[in-house]
């Protein structure tokens, strides 16, 4: 903990969460440092999404605390949300707007300046060059997911919180997302993700966290491929 760069930026302390009187998990603790990926694992209904929402600050924990660079996220909300981007089950994409208009709004949400060329590049990189001037309602589920991923990239956040980022994506898009996550981690970013699919994450520092009422312990695992 002597080197501040190696100290965990996102830490949770003794976190507990209840949903309608049912305990989802308790006593959950871990720390996430730069260039690390945290894979949250657990079956359906074990509280993965609830944990992610606690991490974003949308939910409030029943016990414990989430801290960003040593300060509770409830107290440094503005600073935390500037450095954090969340992609949930819903894409947060307006059907009546075109992909570029959606990105323009998402960039403004994060308090950044919108650059048309950069947005177009990102959309093209995610394979959306043929649907730039269509309203998003004309796009398929996977294509809308790609627009949401472009918004994530343009947010310029250091911490990504991704809830099932691979659902609805085809094989090439899955490879693309794996590449994006790898690039983000190599650039010193952090990712918290849940997924039921197998991800190819060679060369990435992966932490695993199993969520559930019974066992909650972070396991260090070196990926071997």
């Amino acid at each position, binding site marked *: 903990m002597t080197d501040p760069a190696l100290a965990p930026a996102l830490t949770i302390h003794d976190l507990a969460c209840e949903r309608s009187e049912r305990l989802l998990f308790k006593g959950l603790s871990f720390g996430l440092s730069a260039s690390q990926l945290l894979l949250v694992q657990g079956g359906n209904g074990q509280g993965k999404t609830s944990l992610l929402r606690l991490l*974003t*600050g*949308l*939910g*409030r924990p029943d016990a414990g605390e989430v801290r960003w660079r040593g300060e509770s996220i409830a107290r440094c*909300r*503005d*600073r935390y*949300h*500037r450095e*954090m981007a*969340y992609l*949930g*089950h*819903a*894409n*947060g*994409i*307006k*059907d*009546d*707007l075109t992909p570029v*208009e959606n990105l323009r*709004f*998402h960039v*403004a*949400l*994060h*308090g950044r300046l919108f650059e048309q060329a950069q947005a177009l590049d990102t959309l093209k990189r995610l394979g959306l060059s043929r649907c730039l001037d269509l*309203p998003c309602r004309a796009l398929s589920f996977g294509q809308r997911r790609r627009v949401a991923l472009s918004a994530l990239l343009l947010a310029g956040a250091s911490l990504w919180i991704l809830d099932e980022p691979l659902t609805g994506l085809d094989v090439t898009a899955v490879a693309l997302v794996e590449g994006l996550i790898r690039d983000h981690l190599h650039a010193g970013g952090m990712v918290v993700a849940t997924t039921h699919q197998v991800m190819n994450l060679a060369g990435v520092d992966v932490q695993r966290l199993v969520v559930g009422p019974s066992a909650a312990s972070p396991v260090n695992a070196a990926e071997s491929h």
Partner: protein
Amino acid sequence: MGHFFWSVLLRDLTLAGRRRSDWLIAVFFFVMVSSLFPLGVGPEPELLKRIGPGVLWVAATLASLLSLSRLFEDDHRDGSLEQMVLSPASTVQLVLGKAAAHWLVYGIPLLLIAPVLGIQFNLPSDAIVVLVVSLLMGTPILSLLGAAGAALTLGLRGGGVLLTLLILPLYIPALIFGAGAVDGVMAGTGAEAHLSLLGAFLLVSLLVAPWIAAASLRVSLE
């Protein structure tokens, strides 16, 4: 006002422009409800003049309620509300932006069409001017208080009905002062007193409603 406020306002205006049917429904509702009264109570000029201000104000209130239940609902469903609440900018700016867009899209058309409906109720020209002024001051109140109500009932089953029951009592002061101002000018006592109270109520709504709405949004999303 912050950058975020303008982004939200601009986005909601663009969305309203893409979906003009919603907007037309609210205007037609206002016209239909206020046109039913002359047909129902009969064509007596004095009676129509007597009930005109109240009927127009009640119709404006209901027309604004009609669109309010969807104020946050659509954004909640497609996940953009979460994204907006997670913005580093304050949620109060989000609420103000959405309430301002609601007023511009649903409030302003009511103001523009009100003089025509005023003639239908045989209102004198000075009363029509006061009617438009009272609606100009009153419709932002409807949007602001309505935003707080919409945020409170967000995600609840039967939220639309609950919203109506919750918000209509809060609209009563605006209704009394707004319709009272028009009555006052026709009775010769002047509209200033009522309009001042309406203005005071607008200021109170502006100072209180966005904060209530922002807090309720965070609770609804939890």
